[in-house]
């Protein structure tokens, strides 16, 4: 059953159309990856789904609700959160304050949720009073994900979670993504690191030039010769 669906999306920046009618679907409990070469429109797609960019055409449905054209601050209330690729933390705030900001729209007691986030990311608990600007890249990425999880979203959007991370940390971050997914959050990832992402994804979409090129299970895409040659570097 689909929890998130984007149909026939056309979007871009100003006059320049980047997406020429893209569709994707994320089912409950799935991890779905969007991969493709630079300039394929992956980041544009995720920004459009989250309402940062407005589609000129198409429909976005989150859990049976039409969210097309809504602003991000409304979309978080509908249960979808987003981790941008860069500048995804508040550097002068402490780890715990970053998590509190993730829960800004909650008026109830969210301390229990902070504890759960620390269970997923035990490293953060020791650093809770440190300013995020002073943390390493991996820890900072965990803060960014923790912040986005504070609202206990139905769907989590991750824009290149492994970008600018050292190779040994990439694996750790992806393990965390699987762990978060197992707790019941559907995840949509945009990723350059295509092989790693497809390995853990239930399904994947390959975009090129702003259009859908392939769609299959993660494993099938990894074993697809044409995909391998064109998009996974042989």
């Amino acid at each position, binding site marked *: 059953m689909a929890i998130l669906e984007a149909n026939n999306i056309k979007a871009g920046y100003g006059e320049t159309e980047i997406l020429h009618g893209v569709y994707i679907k994320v089912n409950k409990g799935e991890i779905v990856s969007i991969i493709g070469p630079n300039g394929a429109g992956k980041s544009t797609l995720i920004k459009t789904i*989250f309402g*940062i960019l407005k589609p000129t055409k198409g429909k976005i449905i989150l859990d049976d609700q039409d969210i097309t054209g809504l*602003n*991000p*601050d409304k979309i*978080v*209330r509908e249960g979808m959160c*987003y981790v*941008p690729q860069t*500048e*995804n*933390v*508040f*550097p*002068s*705030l402490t780890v715990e*304050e*970053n998590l*509190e*900001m*993730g829960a*800004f*729209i909650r008026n109830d007691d969210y301390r229990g949720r902070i504890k759960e986030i620390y269970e997923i990311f035990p490293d953060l608990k020791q650093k809770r009073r440190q300013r995020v*600007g002073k943390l390493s890249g991996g820890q900072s990425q965990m803060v960014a994900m923790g*912040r986005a999880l504070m*609202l206990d979203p139905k769907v989590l959007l991750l824009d290149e979670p492994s970008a600018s991370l050292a190779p040994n940390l990439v694996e750790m971050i992806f393990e965390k993504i699987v762990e978060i997914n197992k707790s019941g959050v559907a995840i949509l990832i945009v990723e350059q690191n295509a092989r790693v992402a497809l390995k853990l994804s239930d399904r994947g979409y390959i975009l090129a030039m702003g259009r859908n090129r392939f769609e299959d299970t993660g494993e099938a895409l990894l074993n697809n010769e044409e995909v391998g040659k064109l998009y996974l570097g042989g």
Partner: protein
Amino acid sequence: MEQLVESISKIPQLIVYGIISGSILTLGAVGLSLTYKILNFANFAHGDVMALGAFFALASLTFLRWLGVSATPFGSLSFGFPMIIAFIIAILLTAVTVIIIDRILYKKLRKTGRIILLVASVGVALSLRNIIQFIWGPDPQYYFKKIQIAKKILGIRIKPDEILIIGIAVLLVLLLHLFLQYTKMGKAMRATSDNMELARVTGIDTDKIIIWTWVIGSALAAVGGILVGIENKFITPELGWQLLLPIFAAVILGGIGNPYGAMAGAMIIGLSEEISTAFISTAYKPAVAFIILVIVLLFKPKGLFGGK
């Protein structure tokens, strides 16, 4: 040599004057710093907002006198109960005025870029100054005329009013610190000042944060303006213009957008302006702020406490 010894002997007294003037500058500088970082532009009208606060207080004092409210001074201070009312009314009216200016002017220009906002704020500054001058005229307007006798503490002269000025500044700075560090809205304000785009996608209502920023900035500015009036006994429409340079110097000195840096910057500017008078003519006071500003920009362009 003898002259140097005499100059140095004045320094303890001048340090006290510096702290008084630094306290007033702090209230202006903190507000300017907050709006600078969160609204992303240099607000040249901030000095005149301080003047506006001072004149709203004057209007309230005049009105209360007309109503016949007793102005018997508190203890050895120069003013009484009406001043408390004047503070409250001036803070409210200044904040409301600034929010109205934001809604009809800055809000519409926010997407166009910081230079256009800056130029617009110069226009606001000139308008405010001229409206004030139109209503009250260019001559000094007195809060009170009673001359206060300074007390001598350890050979240093200080008036009871001045002790109160320092006390009010310390109290407000402390309250602001508690607000920024420990309340949800204060934390969201710091988050927005770090990264407004991220604050928005996190679900923080950034428009509300902008209003809070104006309210806090203009309330502190109004109090600062009134304290100038209490220190000098009178105010003029030029008050804001005269404060603008030292306030900007303080903000840049402390690292733009860092309210704690702005407090330190304001103290440094206040102290150096006053201490300079032991060695050079008082007329050069504004130049001292300028020289410090230039030196800091040359050697530490991000300010003494700027750059994370």
